[in-house]
């Protein structure tokens, strides 16, 4: 395996050198030369206008995967209820399954989760495989992994999707490692290659500055985690699923074989505070311009009115004005709400990386040069302490609250 430059066609134009993030391309005597820093990411191959670069020596194993069929999605539950991302995956999985002409199944594991069946089928599932057992009362990685491996081994889906939640991102790599297959993290777009009928998995890297499309070769299922809120959940309109009996398959497990190495001692939630900011459609975020922890009460008032939650920039978190779970950005959470209101946030690239895919961004900042205004849909150069209370008042008046 090697990466080679065809010197007869290379013009030494430096496009490849500029695109390489690993400093692996040098221009020597007007020709590109690739050094040992190369990680074979392929960025130079894509950018080359002369098709001068290729990776050689990679053999297509042409393995036969005809015994794998169908799309399977993981319906992650928390406290007995399926998370929205499970339905988002069902809707997305429906498209993929229809494209491939295969069935779409959901995996539902938990304790007392039967209540979810009716709703789950509204998003296009053909089948649900369910393990309903008290050992799955909590999100424990090793036993969930074991259960998923059993189900995947038995039903052999060609595609397996799970939410890129905290649990999903911890659990599914374990599953992929046991099954020995590829896993693509945190996808934001999925499609089927029309010719090869394989899954094209697109995901952001480098803090969202670059998108990479990834395929799984030589192994099945093709596994991916998908960011919550990226795919649209959409009811198919087919309700009255009627006889759940044939559409739900209960899988009995031998409880004695599901002993965990993780002893859960306690679970605590932050009292009166929503820290699960990725789960909200509206985020009102504060930065350095807030000036102190007290000012977050103002943002919370606005967030509450909008049915949203409070976020923060790194500067605000590092100043201990608000706790870390609220942090948006590269070292915090990546969010994509319908509405993101940035108050007193200048918009460092690391912050933008965590929120630039929000549907609508409103930025309020004193500094007209603040980078946040480059990506905001609406920008207000002004004092947040003047603008936010006015907006709160306006909303309250509109609702007849004032």
């Amino acid at each position, binding site marked *: *395996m090697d990466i080679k430059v065809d010197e007869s066609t290379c013009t030494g134009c430096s496009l490849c050198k500029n*695109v390489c*993030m*690993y400093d692996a391309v040098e221009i020597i005597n007007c020709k590109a030369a690739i050094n040992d*820093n190369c990680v074979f990411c*392929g*960025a130079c191959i894509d*950018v080359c206008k002369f098709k001068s670069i290729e990776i050689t020596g*990679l053999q297509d194993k042409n393995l036969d995967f005809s015994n794998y069929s169908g799309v399977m999605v993981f319906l992650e539950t*928390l406290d007995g209820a399926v998370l929205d991302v499970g339905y988002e995956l069902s809707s997305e999985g429906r498209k993929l399954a229809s494209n491939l002409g295969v069935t779409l199944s959901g995996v539902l594991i938990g304790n007392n989760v039967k209540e979810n069946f009716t709703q789950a089928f509204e998003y296009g599932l053909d089948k649900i495989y369910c393990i309903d057992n008290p050992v799955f009362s909590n999100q424990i*990685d090793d036993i969930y992994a074991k259960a998923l491996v059993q189900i995947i081994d038995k039903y052999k889906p060609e595609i397996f999707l799970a939410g890129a939640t*905290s*649990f999903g*991102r*911890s659990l599914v*790599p*374990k599953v*992929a*490692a046991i099954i020995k*297959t*590829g*896993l693509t993290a*945190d996808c934001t777009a999925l499609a089927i290659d029309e010719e090869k009928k394989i899954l094209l998995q697109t995901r952001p890297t*480098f*803090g*969202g500055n*670059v*998108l*990479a*499309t*990834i*395929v799984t*070769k*030589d192994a099945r299922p093709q596994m991916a985690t998908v960011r919550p809120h990226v795919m649209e959940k959409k009811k198919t309109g087919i309700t009255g699923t009627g006889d759940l009996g044939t559409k739900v398959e209960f899988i009995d497990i031998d409880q004695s074989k599901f002993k965990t*190495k*993780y002893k859960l*001692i*306690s*679970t*605590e939630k932050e009292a009166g505070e929503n820290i*699960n900011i990725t789960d909200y459609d*509206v985020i009102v975020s504060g930065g350095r311009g807030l000036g102190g922890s007290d000012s977050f009460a103002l943002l919370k008032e606005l967030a509450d009115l*909008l049915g949203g939650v409070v976020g923060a920039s790194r500067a605000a978190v590092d100043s201990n004005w608000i706790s*870390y*779970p609220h942090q948006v950005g*590269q*070292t915090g959470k990546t969010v994509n709400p*319908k509405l993101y209101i940035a108050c007193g946030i200048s918009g460092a690239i*690391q912050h933008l990386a965590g929120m*630039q895919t929000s549907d*609508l961004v409103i930025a309020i900042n004193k500094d007209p040069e603040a980078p946040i205004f480059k990506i905001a*849909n*609406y*920008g207000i150069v002004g004092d947040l302490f003047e603008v936010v209370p*006015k*907006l709160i008042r*306006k*909303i309250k008046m*509109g*609702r007849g609250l004032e």
Partner: protein
Amino acid sequence: MIDIKIIVCIKQVPGTTEIKINPETNTLVREGIETVINPFDTYAIEEGVRLKEKLAPLLSQTGEEVETIALTMGPPQSGEMLKEAIALGIDKAVLLSDRAFAGADTWATALTLAEAIKKFDDWKLIILGKQTLDGDTGQVGPELAQKLNIPFIGYTSSILDINKNRMTIKRLMEDRYETFEIRLHAAISVGKDINIPRVPSLRGKLRARNETIPVWDKNYLNLDQSQTGLEGSYTQVIRIFMPEHHYEVKMLDGSPDQQVDEIYGRLKELNIV
């Protein structure tokens, strides 16, 4: 005799602030060449050093010792980053470097790291940053743990208690903290809420300067090229491209009242208020 080894897995990454997009060609332009320790890995290093500081006095009562080891897989110049880890208080470092390791996805990376870790006796705990700045997957930790058949706790926000055989550890999930007790061996990943990393000490820097970093290649790890790097990977990047961000920025003029009216009107249209 070292009785407990704490292994910290780190990675050298390009600093993202250096990446800019040339608007004419829509391609990436890196200005200057800067590589850094993956930011999350700095918390992993610090946690490793702190655990040693905590465990060493306890273990010394029974004449036992604890050692921290930084491990990375990467090109030869990653050795410099390992020296930085030593300057930050890590005892030893090993570089896994081989042309055959290049292009590894998370699976192949985890396999190579696992084989290297098996070379150490008496390792008890593996600490990783929760994800890297470049790949951004967070998958190597749990895949590595699975290959070693040990528990993995991601998003660790604090280690409440630890001794030679077990630890009590808290992880941050979306809406809650969970506290677990697990037996060692184990692997954990950490984020920025676990500690505040120290700056390198002068003594550490001096020690780092004199340290020779051993380099292990695929032969030393008894790995075949087909198991490592791009060839040993199940996933393959087939296309890299720039996201198309179309930001239509509208700066709102007028008095604050007018600005708020316009925003309110827009929110109303979108049925948000």
